[in-house]
C-alpha cells in the first residue's frame, strides 16, 4: 500500500520509516514523502494511481493541507485516494473544514502510531 505523507517537517520521514519498520520490511506499506502541498500534488500527478492513502498536515507554509485536500478532490478524482488530515489538538475549525472538503479521516497531533496502524488495517481489509 502506497502512502504519501505531506508535512513541512523533514524529520517526519525517518520517524515514519522507523515506526513502520516492520511493515516496510514485510512490504505491507510503502512510504513517499512531500514537504509541501505543492510537492505532494507534483508527486501525485507524477505517479498516477499509485498512492492509496494521503496523510497530510494542515498547518504548512505555502499551500496548506486544506488547499491540498481541495485540489486533490477537485483535480485528482480517479482513483480517489483515502485522505487523512493531521490536525492540532482541539482544532475544531480545521476539523470541520476538512470534513467539508472531503477528508476521509482525522488524526490529531501528536500522532499516535498505534491508532494509525489500526486505521491502516481497516483500509487494507
Amino acid at each position, binding site marked *: 500500500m502506497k502512502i504519501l505523507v505531506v508535512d513541512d*517537517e523533514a*524529520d517526519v520521514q*525517518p*520517524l515514519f520509516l*522507523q*515506526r513502520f*519498520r516492520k511493515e516496510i520490511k514485510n512490504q505491507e506499506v510503502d512510504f513517499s514523502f512531500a514537504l509541501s502541498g505543492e510537492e505532494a500534488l507534483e508527486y501525485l500527478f507524477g505517479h498516477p494511481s499509485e498512492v492509496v492513502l494521503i496523510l497530510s498536515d*494542515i*498547518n504548512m*507554509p*505555502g*499551500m*496548506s493541507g*486544506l*488547499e491540498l485536500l481541495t485540489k486533490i478532490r477537485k483535480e485528482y478524482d480517479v482513483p480517489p485516494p483515502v485522505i487523512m488530515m493531521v490536525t*492540532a489538538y482541539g*482544532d475544531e*475549525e*480545521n476539523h470541520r*473544514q476538512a470534513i467539508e472538503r472531503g477528508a476521509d479521516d482525522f488524526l490529531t*497531533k*501528536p*500522532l499516535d*502510531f498505534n491508532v494509525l496502524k489500526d486505521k491502516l488495517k481497516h483500509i487494507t481489509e
Partner: protein
Amino acid sequence: MKRIFTIILFFLFLGKAFAADPPLKPYLVSKDEAKYLRLPDSCYHYLEMDRQRFTLKQVIKNGNKEISQHARLFEMNLTNNRNYWVWYRLKNDSKNAYIAALCSDSGTSDIYVLDNGKWHNYKTGDNIPWSEKSGDKNNNYIPYTIEAGHEILVYINERGYLSSPKIGNFVKIVQDTYINKVIFTSEHVVSFGLAGFILFGMVFNLLFYYVSREKLYLVYSFLLFFAALTIADSAIQELYFKEHTQWYGPFEVFEGLGFVIMFIYTFRYFFNMKDYFPRLDKILTYFPHFLFGCLLIMLGLYLCNDVENLKVLTVSLLILLGFAGLSAGVLFIGFLVILVWVLIIFARRKDKEARLFTIAVVPFFASFIVSIFVDWEWTTSAATVWAILILSWGLFARYKDLQIENARVALEKEEERNRLIAQQNELLEHQVAERTAELEHSLEELKQTQNQLIQSEKMASLGELTAGIAHEIQNPLNFVNNFSDVSIELLDEMQEELDNGDTEEVKAIAGDIKQNLEKIAHHGRRADSIVKGMLQHSRASSGQKEPTDINALADEYLRLAYHGLRAKDKSFNASLVTHFAEDLPKIKVLPQDVGRVLLNLFTNAFYATQQKGRQLADETYKPTVEVTTTLKDDSVEIIVKDNGTGIPDAIQDKILQPFFTTKPTGEGTGLGLSLSYDIVVKAHGGTIDIESAEGQGATFIINLPLNG
C-alpha cells in the same frame, strides 16, 4: 597913571576879547524860571581842548580866537573824556535878588564866577570828593545869589560829557527836592532792611515747608511775615498809608494779631503741645479764634468810624476797644504764663528745644520792659532779630534732624523692601522647588507609564505569539516523544536480533537508534531555543549587544509571527519567501530588541495580507511575505516585503508615531512601529525606510550598521 593904564589895558583886552566874539548875550533870569533849563545856543561859548590844556587866564585871553560858536553840542560826538571850557553870562533884571543854581553835568566841574569884578571859584561833580565839593553836594550844583540888576560871567571847566550848560532855579529845586519830598530817616531804612532780612527768613522757611511739609515751617514763615510787617511798620505807613490814613489802624491790628496768632501756633508746633500738653494745646487753639473775633469787631468799628452817630459809635468803640484790648491783654498775659510754664517744664526736662526757645524769646519779651528804662530805639528790633535768628537756627537744626530722620526712614523702608523682596524670592524659590518636585514626580510617573506601556506592548505581541509558539514547541516535543518511543521499540527489536545472532541487523538498528537520539537532542534544543526566545522577548532588554545571526533571527521570528497569526485565523495561509544572504556576518545588536522589531514588521505584514485576503475574497490572491537580507558596504539590510493592503499616503508620516494604529480598538497598542523606530534608529544608529503603494503592499527597509 600906571593904574589907569592897566585898567585901560584890561578893558582893551576885554574889549578885544569880546570884540572878536560873536556877541555873547547875557541870559536874563527870573524867579518864574523852570527848575532846570539848558541855555540857548546864543548864550554860551565853549572851547574844547584836544591836546593843549588852557588855564582860565589863557581862555579869557585866547578862547575867543578858538571859538566855534553855533555848534549844536548835543549832536556832537559824545565821549566820556572831553575836556572843555564853557562860559556864559547871567543877568538879573528884577528888583529882588535871584538865586541861580550853576549846575555841573559832568564828573568834574571847576566853576569860576566873575561878579562885580571879583572872581569866585567852586568845585562840584560826581568825581569830586565829598569834602571838596561846594554847594548842594547831593545834586551837584552851586547856588549863587545874583543881586538885583547885577550880571555875572561864569566860566566852567568841564571834564566828562560834552553838553550845553545847565542852570537851575534854586528855590524850585529846594522845594521839589527837599520840602515836598518824602523823607526816609535812617530808622526807616534800618527797619526796612530788617524787614527784608526777616522776609528772606520767611521765604527760606517756606522752602523748608515745601520740602518737609511740616506745618511748623509754614506757621513760622507766617510769623516771620507778620514780624517783618511789624518791624517795618513805620516805613510801610510812610509808603502806603499816607493818603489812606484810616486803614493804618486796621493794618496795625492785623499785623499785631497775625503776629500773636502765628506766635502761638509756632509755639504749639515747636513744642508739639498736642502730644505733650493736650489740654493746654486746646486752650491755645481757642486763642486765635478769640483774637480773630476781636479783630473783626475792631475792624468793623473802625470802618463805621465814617458814618453818622459818630459820638455813640466812638464811645461804644472805645468801650469795645478797651474790652478787646483788655481781653487781648489778659489773653496775652495768660499766654505768657502758659509759655513760661511750658518753658519751665521743658527746661526741667533739660529739653534742648525749650532752651533754644527760651534763649530766643526771652530777650524779645524782656525788651518791652527794658525799652522803658534804656533809651535805645532799637532794643525791641534787636531782640526781634535775635529771636528770629535763634528760632531760625533752631528750625534749621530741626530741619536737619528731620532730613536725617527722613533718610533713616527711607533707608529702613529700603531695607524693609529688600527684606520683602528676599522673602518673596524665597517664597518663589520654594514654589518653584515644589513645582519642580511635582513635575519630576509627574515625569517619573510618565516614565513608569511608558515602561509599562512598552512592557504591555511586549506582552501584547507575546500574546499574539503564544499560539505560534505553542505550535512551534508542539512539533519538536512530538518528535522527541515519537523518536523516544521508536527508539524503545528499536531496542526491543535489537534484543531479538541479538538473540537471533543477526549482527548485521543489530548494527543497522543501532545506527537508527543513534540517529533517533540525535533527532531527540535536536528537537529538544529546538524547543529549548523557542522557549528561550520567548523568555528573552518578554524580558526587558539587557542592553548588551552581542554578535547575532540576523538570518536565524529573521527566520525564527518570521515563523513565530506566521504561526501567531495562524493560531488566531486557521484559514489564513501565506507564502513565506526568504532570500537570506549566505555570507552574512554576525553583527553586534541587541537580539531581543531587533527580534521585536522583526516580529513587529512580520506581524504587520501578515496582518496586511490577511486583511487584503479578506477584502478580495479571491482564491487567486496569494498572500506572500518576503524577507531579504543583504550585506552592504557597512551595514546589513533587511527588507520585509508583503503584498498586503499597503499603507495609504495620508498616514505614512504617522505610522511611526506612538499610539498610532489602524487596527481596531484592542488589537494594537500603536506602539509597535514607534518602538521599532526607537530601537533601530536610536539604539542601533540604523535607518528605517518605508515604501508603500496603497493596495499594492508595503516594503520596510531596515539598515543596521555592521560595527553596531
